[in-house]
């Protein structure tokens, strides 16, 4: 005997599905959205592990990568992800395009839409630029990093990588160390990690950490500190951020030697974390500065795996966004 529910009888089961046109940051994602990306990425990860790591699901869709800043892994990762789903990919960089002739961002995305772009993956040096682009085109815009603001797919691939190793992230201690203030990776990671219930510790020199971010969310929490040696105690995950040389030139850190002494992730510090704590870095790394080479390539390092997982997560995002575009 069976109690019949209305929606079942009508033959339309209700499943969580993607609704937004764009992916600009992680702060607008609900826990259900994040879960959907993670589960979809699991399936994509399996596809990538097959002898033929490719399907034809998005054939007919056109993905444009529009990069105003240099990039190796993000651009290549999106390209491989789109091609693995059967989409066509057009790669544009600011150098060599009409941007050099002075074409505005809005005109550029409108032109791409007119050419038939369904998705524009965009990286820009100015915070907020993808939001402007998204407002002026019917194409879906995925933020591939904007200024010091956001890098949502990096945060999602970081969460995916952590989950594959530690399972449930709730209650886990995640330390993010380095130039947090200028890091779009740290900012986007904070929302996804807290939404997953992690206890995040942002750590760096006083000039490079935003104290306003400290606080507790509905599930996770965020703490801000300058003391890396104490912060790393009992950490389940340690994520080192790239330190940019221009931060020294602008006087935000006194010298690289001082930075290394206080904030380099090395074997001595990693010993204070949980045994087997994950070592992460969004890349590109300055080995010997923010991270010691033996740790970057050590047993606990999942840095290369982050790059591999990036393809699966970007496939998931492209799949969800492209299929949500259809009527």
């Amino acid at each position, binding site marked *: 005997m069976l109690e019949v529910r209305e929606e079942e009888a009508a033959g339309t089961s209700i499943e969580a599905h*993607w609704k937004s046109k764009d992916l600009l940051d992680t702060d607008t994602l609900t826990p259900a959205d994040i879960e959907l990306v993670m*589960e979809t990425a*699991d*399936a994509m990860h*399996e596809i990538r592990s097959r002898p033929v790591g490719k399907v034809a699901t998005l054939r007919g869709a056109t993905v444009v990568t529009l990069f105003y800043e240099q990039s190796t892994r993000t651009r290549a990762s999106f390209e491989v992800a789109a091609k693995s789903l059967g989409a066509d990919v057009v790669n544009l960089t600011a150098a060599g395009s009409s941007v050099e002739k002075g074409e505005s961002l809005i005109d550029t995305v409108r032109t791409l839409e007119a050419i038939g772009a369904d998705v524009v993956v965009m990286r820009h040096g100015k915070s907020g630029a993808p939001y402007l682009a998204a407002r002026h085109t019917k194409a879906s815009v995925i933020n591939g990093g904007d200024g010091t603001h956001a890098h949502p797919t990096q945060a999602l691939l970081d969460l995916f990588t952590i989950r594959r190793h530690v399972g449930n992230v709730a209650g886990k201690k995640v330390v993010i160390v380095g130039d947090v203030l200028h890091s779009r990776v740290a900012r986007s990671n904070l929302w996804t990690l807290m939404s997953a219930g992690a206890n995040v510790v942002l750590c760096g020199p006083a000039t490079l950490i935003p104290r306003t971010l400290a606080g507790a969310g509905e599930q996770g929490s965020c703490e801000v500190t300058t003391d890396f040696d104490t912060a790393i105690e009992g950490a389940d995950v340690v994520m080192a951020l790239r330190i940019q040389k221009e931060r020294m030139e602008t006087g935000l850190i006194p010298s690289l030697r001082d930075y290394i002494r206080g904030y380099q992730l090395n074997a001595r510090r990693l010993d204070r974390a949980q045994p087997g704590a994950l070592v992460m870095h969004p890349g590109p790394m300055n080995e010997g500065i923010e991270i010691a080479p033996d740790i970057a390539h050590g047993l606990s390092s999942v840095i290369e795996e982050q790059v591999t997982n990036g393809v699966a997560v970007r496939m998931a995002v492209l799949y969800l966004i492209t299929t949500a575009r259809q009527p």
Partner: protein
Amino acid sequence: MTVEPLFGPDEISRTIRRLAHEIIENNHGAVGLIIIGLLSRGYPLAVRLAKAIGEFEGVTVPVGRLDIGLYRDDVTRRTAPPKVRPSEIPGTIDDMTVVLVDDVLFTGRSIRAALDALIDYGRPARVRLAVLVDRGHRELPIRPDFVGKNIPTALVQTVQVHLAELDGEDGVYVFGEEAAHA
């Protein structure tokens, strides 16, 4: 509203045992067999079939599960795109006899998608199709090799298979106008 199933747990259990015998007969034993269920409801059926075949033949029969979400021909035509889940195929399917298993055979489009998905894993010697229910209305030239129950239906009707592993109980239900009665 309370509805009686067209077939209950005992009937389903007997049907699976019969299908297992038919597969063994057709394959002349269980050698080289791999049973692959389509997600979601083909997979528990595949597990049960493999267990039954294993019991009758005294061997362990490999079982896999296949997600066809990314291979559907209507991915971009649905209001809610299918949720995709990881497939899991143990070992290789090269030169094996693959038995695809699904709960209900309807238009045949899921099976077309499954064949596409399967070929991405290798080149099986042969592929057979086992379904618990064939409700008719094929839209593609696909026919099952092993059928549990033939249930003639009208297009407006819905056939639902409930399995203990996913739904807490076994039962085959027909909904909609003029639902057939057993």
